[in-house]
């Protein structure tokens, strides 16, 4: 493998890490002012990873960028609106508009802690991860699933840097399986609920970005694996 290719792989992994980092932050908790500020100042959404490769990503990023440009999100009432958008969709206390757990979709009855949760838990355990609030919180929360992929991508990068190619391949395969067996099962239903139920373009946009990213991820990973194998 040429150094150049390795360099390309590294770059791609960094892009993926950044994408997962932003997404996990967007979904794991209510929007912090700092998070919004970072997106705003660095114009991150304008140059979000793979923005040119995937239509949904670019549409979502555009929506968020426009929103951040046209609305003073840090102004109290706008910020409250954004905050409530997250709370009401993902926390409660009214019926959740878009339950952020995989089991809510696989169980068809909006349930937590189902077999899917166990499968996800066991997958994390293979890499010695547990949710910070285990066993009180369900392992298959979108924020945790994205965090898991972030962590594995990071490990892949580290393996690559240490030239542990086999390990990197194995990690990538693991990510691919996880996306196929889990995220892809529910992400379109989940993001659709957000797109229909969100009041701010912020979360509508984030839903599109998430959806688009999860769609192209297997292609990216496939290419990474093939390149590493070659």
């Amino acid at each position: 493998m040429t150094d150049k290719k390795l360099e390309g792989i590294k770059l791609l992994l960094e892009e993926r890490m950044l994408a997962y980092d932003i997404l996990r932050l967007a979904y794991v908790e209510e929007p912090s002012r700092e998070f919004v500020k970072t997106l705003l100042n660095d114009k991150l959404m304008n140059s979000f990873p793979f923005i040119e490769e995937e239509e949904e990503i670019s549409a979502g990023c555009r929506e968020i960028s426009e929103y951040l440009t046209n609305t003073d999100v840090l102004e109290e009432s706008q910020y409250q609106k954004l905050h409530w958008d997250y709370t009401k969709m993902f926390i409660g206390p009214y019926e959740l508009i878009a339950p952020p757990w995989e089991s809510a979709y696989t169980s068809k009855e909006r349930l937590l802690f189902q077999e899917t949760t166990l499968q996800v838990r066991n997958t994390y355990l293979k890499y010695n991860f547990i949710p910070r609030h285990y066993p009180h919180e369900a392992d298959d929360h979108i924020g945790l699933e994205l965090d898991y992929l972030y962590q594995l991508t990071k490990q892949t990068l580290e393996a690559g840097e240490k030239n542990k190619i086999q390990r990197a391949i194995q990690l990538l395969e693991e990510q691919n399986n996880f996306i196929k067996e889990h995220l892809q099962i529910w992400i379109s239903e989940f993001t659709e609920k957000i797109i229909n139920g969100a009041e701010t373009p912020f979360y509508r946009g984030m839903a599109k970005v998430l959806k688009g990213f999860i769609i192209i991820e297997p292609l990216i990973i496939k290419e990474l694996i093939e390149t590493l194998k070659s």
Partner: protein
Amino acid sequence: MKGFIEKALNYQLERRTFLKASAATVAGLTLTGCSGGLQAVSDAVAKDIASKEEEWITAACWHNCGGRCLNKALVVDGVVVRQKTDDTHEDSPDYPQQRGCARGRSQRKQVFGVDRLKYPMKRKNWAPGGGDKELRGKDQWVRISWDEALDIVAKEFIRIKEKYGNRAFFQGGGGEIARTMGLLGGYVSNWGTTSWGSWRWGPEKFGMAEGFFAHSINDRIDLRNSELIVIWGANPAWSAGGSPTYHYLQAKKAGARFVVIDPSFTDTSEILEAEWIPIRPGTDHAMLLGMAYTLITEDDPVKNPLIDWEFLNKCVVGFDAEHMPEGANPEDNLKDYILGTYDGIPKTPEWASEICGVEVRAIRKLAREIGYTKRAALFTGWAPGRTHSSDSMPQMFMALGAMTGQMGLSGKMTGVSCHFGTANGGPRLVTNGGNGVPGIKNPVSDTLNHAQMWDAILTGKYTAGYNDVRDINIQLIYHGGNAVLQTREGMTKGIEAHRKVEFVVSNSHFLTTNSKYADVVLPATTEWEREGGFLTGNREILIFYTKITEPLYEAKDDIWIAKELAAKLGLDADAVDPISAKQKLFNQLAGATIIKENGNGMEKLVTITSSDIAQWGVKGEPQHGRITLKEFKEKGMYQVPRKPKDNYGFIAYEQFRKDPAANPLNTETGKLEIYCKGLMELIKSKGFTEIKPIPTYNPPVKGYEATFSDWEKKVKGEYPLQVINPHYMRRSHSIFDNISWLREAFPNPVFVSVKDAKERGIKHGETVLITSEYGKTLRMAYLTETLMPGIVGLPHGAWAEIDEKTGIDKAGADNVLTGQIPTGQGISGWNTCICQVEKWTGESLTPDHKWPQRIIF
């Protein structure tokens, strides 16, 4: 398409710099300690978690559902994979399994529902003193920490106490928080007749049991000796899950004929192939009088013995002028009242029929049949007592049993047969011990009646007793449990009351109606997330359940909330919760008793060894019992096996009937009191309405008579229909209403008779608007021939879903239609409610299980 790698390589240096910089800033934000995210653990920890094996654990089904069944969960590391019910022994009529209903089998859908309240939350526009109080029920919410939540609650307690004193605190329910509020100096409590209606406190005055804590009917095996079983206003097939209907079936197989008196032809009637006698709600007393008239006028001790004179002579006071208690006016006797000797109105079957709608023929026939049947069981549910002004009705029910002597012998019984005790009277054969926690006194004595409490909060006045109206100024409502805003009458007023006070806080599992109108909501654990406990139901079983899963998210036990709040308030938190959960459980185990094999007295149930005690880490003494702790926990239930002629049977009033002088009842005269001064005084003392010492008929407020604007000319008024609230299999009161597969299985329509529907042009399945003086609600109409015309069946307990713009509820919440009407002993009179039903011209309802998510803003 170019490869991703190639593209990445083509990126300018700029992009690379950007990536690095962004990665660094974003990483700087990375997940804080209190938020989610993953954490790395050691190999050993990971391995330990991954190796957890599945096990069956006995799971609580703890609701006030009228049944009690064994529920088990197959659990893997807190995740419930499957549920099952009783398979601890073979099923037989004598020794039946305690098998669950659709609700119990959906229990995990409640515990693990995504809409569980997961964090403490506060209403966004709340501020000390309430902020914008009108926004309660429609505000936005913010997740807060436990510390902040408890701080807010504690500060409001202190602020309000300083400003108004302890009489400003209203405690809606929940024994745990009551302890903290007691220590803080007390609170205004609430009281009412709840499910019992007029069966709650009156019966003990005239010599009968209320039917839950004690029973006046024989046990289920003796019931097989009855030839005729009359069930008045009870539908156990819907309202008492588990085995009650099965017990009735055994009596049927043994040859009993069933008669069911009810506004609707119920599943119970169908299963038992009963004769159905349709009757109007709140008029049972009139029918009883008509029957008594038949007995009195047709009885001939020789040729046609319908009345059991021997029983009346020996065991009863007040039936006629010759059997009056000392000091009573002899004219005040039941017989002369029925014959109309002094008021000129004989309570003939014709008189009764005009009121209750039962055919004259049917009234006479049933009276005769009860009179001449040797062994009859006269049963009633509480539903007929859940009617306004009905304090004398239970006494009249007793009088019918007494007149016909259907009491105190095998196959002969009269009394309440519902809830746990349906078809199976008698003291408990197995029971758990106390948990050892001493009570905490409430220094405030004010207490508000359910039928008046919302009004009292709004008007500042309440009735404390006869000629005793007091001022009250409630400014804080704490719902530590229960569902009073949903399940007590007059919800519209209740919501208004919640929007009036300065602070409302509620512990709950979901955003129930109580919580919806609160300022702060605190997530409580369900029984599945707690240490464990005991459940009793019918007299033969004791269920021992244990923890299934860890508390979900930040949910806490109610007792933890009470304790932590006490600490914040500077109170003695240990006094609130002095004993560990494990020790409490142990105390109940150690104190559990079972009936001795010879049937005389109780003995220890559980064998506990010193190694059990060490393993549990509790204080206690080893003891010998019927079952080992290990076996009890594994089985999850102890059931006393029964068979005919065993030592565990029960004949109510047996000793009393044999020798009333030696075995007096706990009444003023020691006898059954058809003339009951104690009852009259009890009712008077409440300060609402009064009754006579003998059971005279009082037309109920909002009863059938009230559906007319002119009773004499029979001109119907604005609200021509009567509403009853059947207990519905989708829910246990209000619990389970949000479970989607139960919603699908039980769509919760309003039942309308075909005749009434036709008159209003309403078709099956169409949305209708139900209006009463107090509120409006929407439902899909279910047209049926099984309901007496003039009556509407609106199932009890649906979670209100009030449209803030129109004020119309769309869930069919029963208490939207009821008002705050206190009568008699403070009866909650749900089954006396009048309404109009019309076709709804607005948008039709979609089935509940397909309801779009609740979008409020």
